[in-house]
């Protein structure tokens, strides 16, 4: 039972990482840049939920998703677009600057102290009355309702995103831009619009991930996005950055490693284990598990 619970928790945490990793990987695939500020969009989403929570929990979630998508577009327009075509190092430093900016802004506006959230209580007041702590017990097997919701959401997002990329016109345009930006433009694809849409989708997914984290009782503070951001980023790189299935795989692998490390009593060293695996994967296969090799031309 312990094993099964760990497995399910691993999938749930990994699913959240995968959802964040999708944002990294899509932006990398299309704009060829690492969006360091992606993790901090999670934090912004969480604060938006806290702000709108007194009105209505569902409204707060929708507001978070919409505002984060808009924030993603704005960041791209102001900070990254002027640097398109500049050296990768410059873009990376700007992204770090944006991340720093969002964190300090949040710290000024909301203060440095962590805020607790009652999103779950507000969404499912009746369920909490019948089930203590939001846990469903089937025999000796315990599962949280938030875990079930997370798993369902992650599955939906993954299926939806895969269909979107494969079946819709915009999705296929995204693939085209990631393959060859110049050729895509010659075929009449509006590259700027595609990049904008990518940032919007990635940021919306980050907001959704922050909703799921808050359902699980995550406290909100201005650095809450850093660690999940870095881990999701690790997941994206492990799976092969630029590849959508890779991000999903990487996220789930990372979540499972984290949960099983905890089960084995190595919880304190979880970060070291995860990052060591990242380094090993990068050394064995520098493009990640599902990444494509790109040849460098002079």
């Amino acid at each position, binding site marked *: 039972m312990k094993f099964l619970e760990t497995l399910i928790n691993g999938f749930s945490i990994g699913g959240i990482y995968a959802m964040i990793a999708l944002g990294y990987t899509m932006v990398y695939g299309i704009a060829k840049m690492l969006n360091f500020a992606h993790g901090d969009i999670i934090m912004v989403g969480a604060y938006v939920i806290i702000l709108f929570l007194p009105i209505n929990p569902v409204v707060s979630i929708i507001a978070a998703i919409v505002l984060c998508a808009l924030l993603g577009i704005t960041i791209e327009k102001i900070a990254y677009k*002027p640097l398109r075509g500049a050296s990768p190092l*410059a873009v*990376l430093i700007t992204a*770090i600057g*944006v991340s720093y900016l969002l964190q300090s802004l949040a710290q000024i506006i909301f203060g440095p102290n962590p805020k607790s959230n009652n999103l779950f209580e507000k969404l499912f007041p009746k369920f909490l009355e019948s089930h203590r702590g939001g846990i469903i017990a089937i025999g000796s097997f315990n599962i949280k309702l938030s875990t079930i919701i997370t798993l369902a959401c992650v599955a939906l997002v993954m299926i939806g995103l895969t269909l979107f990329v494969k079946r819709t016109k915009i999705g296929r345009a995204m693939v085209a831009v990631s393959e060859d930006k110049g050729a895509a433009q010659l075929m009449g694809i509006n590259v700027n619009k595609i990049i904008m849409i990518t940032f919007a989708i990635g940021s919306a997914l980050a907001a959704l991930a922050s909703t799921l984290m808050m359902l699980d009782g995550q406290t909100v503070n201005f650095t809450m996005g850093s660690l999940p951001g870095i881990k999701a980023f690790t997941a994206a790189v492990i799976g092969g950055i630029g590849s959508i299935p890779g991000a999903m795989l990487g996220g789930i692998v990372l979540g499972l490693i984290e949960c099983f490390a905890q089960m084995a009593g190595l919880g304190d060293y979880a970060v070291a284990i995860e*990052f*060591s695996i990242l380094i090993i994967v990068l050394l064995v296969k520098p493009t990640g598990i599902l990444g494509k090799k790109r040849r460098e031309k*002079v």
Partner: protein
Amino acid sequence: MRKFVKNYLSYTVIGSLAIILTIMGAIGALPGTTLALLEQSAIAIVLAVSLNMVVGFLGELSLGHAGFMCIGAYVGGKLAVLLSSSLGGTNILTVILALIIGGLAAGLCGFIVGLPALRLRGDYLAIVTLAFGEIVKNIIENSEFFGSHTGLRTPDFTTNRSMRFMLFTIGAVVVLLTIFVIQNVIKSKHGRAITAIRDNEIAARATGINVTKYKLMGFVVSAVFAGLAGVLYSYSVQSIQAVTFDYNYSIEILVIVVLGGMTVNGSIISAVLITALNNILQTKLGGNIAVAKDLIYALVLILLVIYRNAPSLKTFREKYNLGNLWIKLIKPKNDPSKVGEDAVRWDVVPTKISMDEVLSTDVIIDTTGDNSADIGERGGNK
């Protein structure tokens, strides 16, 4: 005999400052807070100049500089604790020994990480260095030997005035040593190889430069000095905690380097300015303004990088380039065969090959292609 770099300006300025301040301190004219600020500046200079070795000269992004500093701090601090019964924790020999061993330990880690990691480049290398920093922090945080979560207590130098000045003098010596070594490495044959890799790795490889060797060299030198800064840090604060050396600390050092324009002198000035500003804002104002400083740094960082790198601002930059004006004023002769220490231009990849340049000693290979600006394609990695 080999010539050493004649950067008399920074040597004399820092050297004389150190002497004056030491004398002033010895006669008791300096309050303890000013001394602490000077120690912090010294640490920031060493960190910034050494990180600039990787970011400015090697052209790679390292996000794990605080990790190397952490190793230096803990190894040096632990050594002082171990030697406190025999040699004495605050003995000058202990400090020198700690500096040597701490620096070597950080350098060794740089070598171990660099050897495999430097096969990667750009974004991937940045991630591995970030991962390295987090691994170091995580392991030290959980290690009983290094005092786990409670941190490590290092000898207290603040009790005795003369000991504090000894530490201060050692700090000044380490700063001068860092600047001296890094500038000389950069001006040497190895340094030219390193800057060549930064400018165009493939071209450098084609001309027979052992890219991995030189990258590793730059990386290890940078790690050694980060380790030295760590040892200095561990002695100046009395108690160290692994949490201090997190990812944000690495970013802060990076901010200093970028604001300094990725040159040695720029890093020194920016390290001193930012440390002083931080200190003044935190102690004098406190509260929200202290937080606002992060906001200002972030904004300055973004605007500066965009201004310096945006392709659309190229003509504007060329017209009103203060940096070029400055260089023209102090260096009337522009000798292209010498690799300048001004790494200001690392970001500019030449887009045209003029005949004059081809006929002169430099060979410039175009990597972006002329159409790159039009369609916004980042060239070279298709």
